[in-house]
């Protein structure tokens, strides 16, 4: 069966593009090797946190950031387009299968959320369940950890967060609970989140901490407050503790990210889109040099999936969308697109200073204004392929804190661009 659009990749960018297209009536197929970056990342929509100084108002700062960083992916979208994408995403979450689980915030101001080492990280749009962690202007916090969750250390968070510069005093104390009682000594975030789905477990947690809390203290937990009904678990804790409660993201697996995956996957299903995991795209299907679909490994068979459009959203080196071999040749793995920003042979790819920007950091797929991949001379490679998310060249998202912002903006933009073309417009009409 032929699809209007094949989306390659199930991270934030791919799912956003797929859902947006499917909701407009396009026949969409998502192919992915596995689940994407959602399961690894905190899934706060960090639009722009540092440039390199801490940024308070990301919407306002975008234009200057693009100017200072030529070729930055934010140069491919308008601020209004990013705002529209944010509003759309918020609507998906609140009306989705986990609703009223919601995202809050906007491009107007970054919140400063505590991280698992107690830094204050600028984030624009965040789950409502994290919002009360906002440190701006000072805060009084009680950070609760769990002995069995080795991936979150509440005392470290409390000690450091009380020393952050956030425009006001931060007081923080901590507790470590030995819950759930019995059972395995090691729990990961997902296992603990399943416990938080259970009201009896939440009662036990509340019973251990409620009497210790100071009058003004907000209560911070690792971001594991439920996976089936996170809003219910969070609201229940706020109600029983009688104060704001918030989540703090930590090491993978990311429970908030899994929630985003569940929300967007369900939105795709409701709109008639399809998703196939364990389907690794290994190359384009070509006819007379024109891309007419993709070739994917499905089990041991190679299958051709015809499509009018393709959105490539396989991620960067972290996700395996891009690859560098031992002879230092970079490769885009799904369609074999040219990779830009890779230092020439003999040039350094990295420096010996970890926290400096590395020469390879901005490598990725270069695109034109229409998000179509281009070769070294700026010539388009395929006119019906759009590239979105971390596959794009030009950003250092983990440093500037812009990962999910870029993915949301460019995934949404890729869908809009495809919807503007005649073939899909006929379907949507």
């Amino acid at each position, binding site marked *: 069966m032929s699809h209007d659009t094949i989306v390659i990749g199930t991270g934030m960018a791919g799912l956003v593009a797929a859902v947006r297209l499917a909701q407009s009536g396009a026949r969409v197929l998502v192919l992915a090797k596995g689940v994407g970056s959602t399961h690894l990342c905190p899934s706060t929509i960090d639009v722009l*946190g540092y440039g390199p100084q801490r940024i308070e108002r990301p919407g306002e700062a975008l234009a200057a950031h693009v100017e200072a960083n030529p070729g930055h992916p934010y140069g491919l979208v308008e601020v209004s387009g990013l705002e529209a994408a944010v509003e759309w995403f918020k609507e998906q979450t609140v009306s989705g299968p986990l609703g009223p689980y919601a995202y809050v915030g906007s491009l107007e101001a970054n919140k400063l959320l505590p991280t698992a080492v107690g830094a204050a990280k600028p984030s624009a749009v965040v789950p409502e369940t994290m919002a009360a962690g906002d440190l701006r202007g000072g805060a009084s916090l009680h950070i609760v950890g769990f002995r069995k969750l080795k991936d979150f250390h509440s005392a*470290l968070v409390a000690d450091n967060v009380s020393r952050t510069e956030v425009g006001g005093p931060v007081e923080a104390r901590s507790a470590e609970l030995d819950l759930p009682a019995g059972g395995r000594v090691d729990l990961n975030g997902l296992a603990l989140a399943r416990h938080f789905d259970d009201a009896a477990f939440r009662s036990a947690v509340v019973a251990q901490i409620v009497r210790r809390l100071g009058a003004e203290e907000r209560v911070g937990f690792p971001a594991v407050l439920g996976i089936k009904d996170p809003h219910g678990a969070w609201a229940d804790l706020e109600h029983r503790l009688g104060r704001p409660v918030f989540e703090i993201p930590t090491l993978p697996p990311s429970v908030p990210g899994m929630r985003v995956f569940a929300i967007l996957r369900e939105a795709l299903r409701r709109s008639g889109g399809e998703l196939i995991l364990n389907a690794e795209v290994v190359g384009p299907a070509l006819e007379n040099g024109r891309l007419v679909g993709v070739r994917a490994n499905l089990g041991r068979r190679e299958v051709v999936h015809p499509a009018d459009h393709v959105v490539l959203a396989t991620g960067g*080196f972290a996700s395996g969308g891009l690859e560098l071999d031992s*002879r230092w040749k970079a490769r885009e793995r799904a369609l074999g697109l040219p990779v830009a920003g890779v230092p020439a042979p003999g040039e350094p790819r990295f420096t*010996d200073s*970890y926290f400096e920007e590395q020469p390879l950091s901005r490598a990725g797929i270069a695109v034109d204004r229409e998000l179509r991949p281009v070769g070294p001379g700026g010539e388009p490679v395929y006119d019906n392929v759009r590239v979105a998310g971390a596959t794009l060249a030009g950003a250092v998202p983990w440093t500037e*804190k812009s990962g999910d912002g870029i993915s949301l903006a460019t995934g949404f933009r890729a869908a809009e661009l495809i919807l503007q073309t005649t073939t899909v417009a006929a379907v949507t009409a």
Partner: protein
Amino acid sequence: MTTLQTEVLVIGGGATGAGVAWDAALRGFDTILVDRRDLGEGTSGRFHGLLHSGGRYAVKDPHAATECIEENLILRHIASDTIEDTGGLFVSTPDDDPAYGDRFLQGCKDTGVPAEEVDVAEVLKREPRLNPRIKRAFTVPDANIDAWKCIWALADGATRHGARILTYHSVVALHRDGDAVTGARLRNELTGEELDVEAGFTLSAAGAWAAEIAHMAGVEGVRVAPGKGIMIAMNHRLVNTVVNRCTMPADGDILVPIRTVSVIGTTDIRTAHPDEIPVTQEEVDQMLDDGETLVPGFRDARALRVWAGVRPLFEDVKTGDTESTRDIGRSHAVLDHLERDGLKGFVTMTGGKWTTFRLMAQDMVDVMCRQLGEDRACRTREERLPGSEDGETYQLGHRLRVRERELQDEQLVCECELISRSRLETAMRERGTANLDDIRRNLRLGMGPCQGGFCIYRATGMLHAIGRQDGPSAAGSLVSFLQERWKGVWPILYGDQLRQARLDDWIYQGALDVEHAPATAPVGAAPPEVREAAADGLKVSAA
């Protein structure tokens, strides 16, 4: 200023220095060992882990070959817990002259190295990843030895016999009284404080840095040619037997399986200063190509880490400079400065190799005893090190076996190296260190495929939780670990290891924002109890 008194001051906490401290302490001398950094952080911790059978030197340096096989057998007895008996192979690859095999066999026979030619087909069954086009193969009793485990066992043993170990203490001056060296001025690198050691005898086991120490004593003409060698650890045991190319010693001709990885080495490049040993891209490419010759597909395997060490090759000034340091003899030399320079109470050890460290230590302490007119016999040939009392060699499955016993009771902090929470916390307390890199060497924390991606955050939290550090110092330790780790990974970042490194970037920068955490530099930020421990001489525990 604090003044410590001792009979023997040992400078340098590598294998030789620790071996000297162990030897001297066993002979009943009151001993202090100092190192400017942690034990085994210099050359001794930067090798491929090969316990030589002597085969490598059988043709080129028969004397060294005999020393190696003798010491190999002694170490299997006294330090068994630090040795895995992998056995070794010499193979003639398609690029090697098969006729060399005959010279090799003859050399082994002449030097006492047990070697035997074996059927290539059998070898390929045992080591299926080896180049199927190898032409000849010989077995030898090579093994691997865990450098840090062995050095800490030596230090632990010495401590049990009264020795004091001062890590992070650099020698800033040697004291002289007329024609005798009488001790040293030290600086505590963690606190900046200085202290004096009054010593009856000073033994310099500073390896590649021995010339600098000799210079401090006013001795001229001691020269050590630092020869840089790089090594790359690969993610898997590509082979389970040590594999050597059956040729004259050259670059990239040894592949050593050790713990869960295999290490290829090495190069040999003359370098100006032992502290400046950068790894170049050309060296990495050369190692990977050499790996392909031994194990086809080597370049597709995952490289974990690369490092460089400096061989302390004693330079005989009379023969002048040579282009290649490999031609300088590997055998050690004890410089008795009384004979050489008329200076009492001071001996320098130069040259040598890991496998013969015990012999070197014995020679050095013998020279001291002779000068002192003491007749105290060396006991290190027989005395087993702490942890090796039962004489059992290390087995690869050891940690898994321990893990299975404690599966229900112990958190696993480092999945790659199977390190439990209590083991980590005990090491942090006993070492009295706030430096995660010190813990790494003790426990192999963060040395597996993720290179600390997950365990280092956990370890940071635990370091803070047991009260060893406040939040900013703990974050500083984390930042410092990430930077130290980066030095060893960036030259080999390709394939899956680049992917892993980028995931770690997302975790530490993208999610945790460590670069903006309130962090203080770890050195100098050690809490009071650490400083006290350092001043008293650290309590030492075998890892």
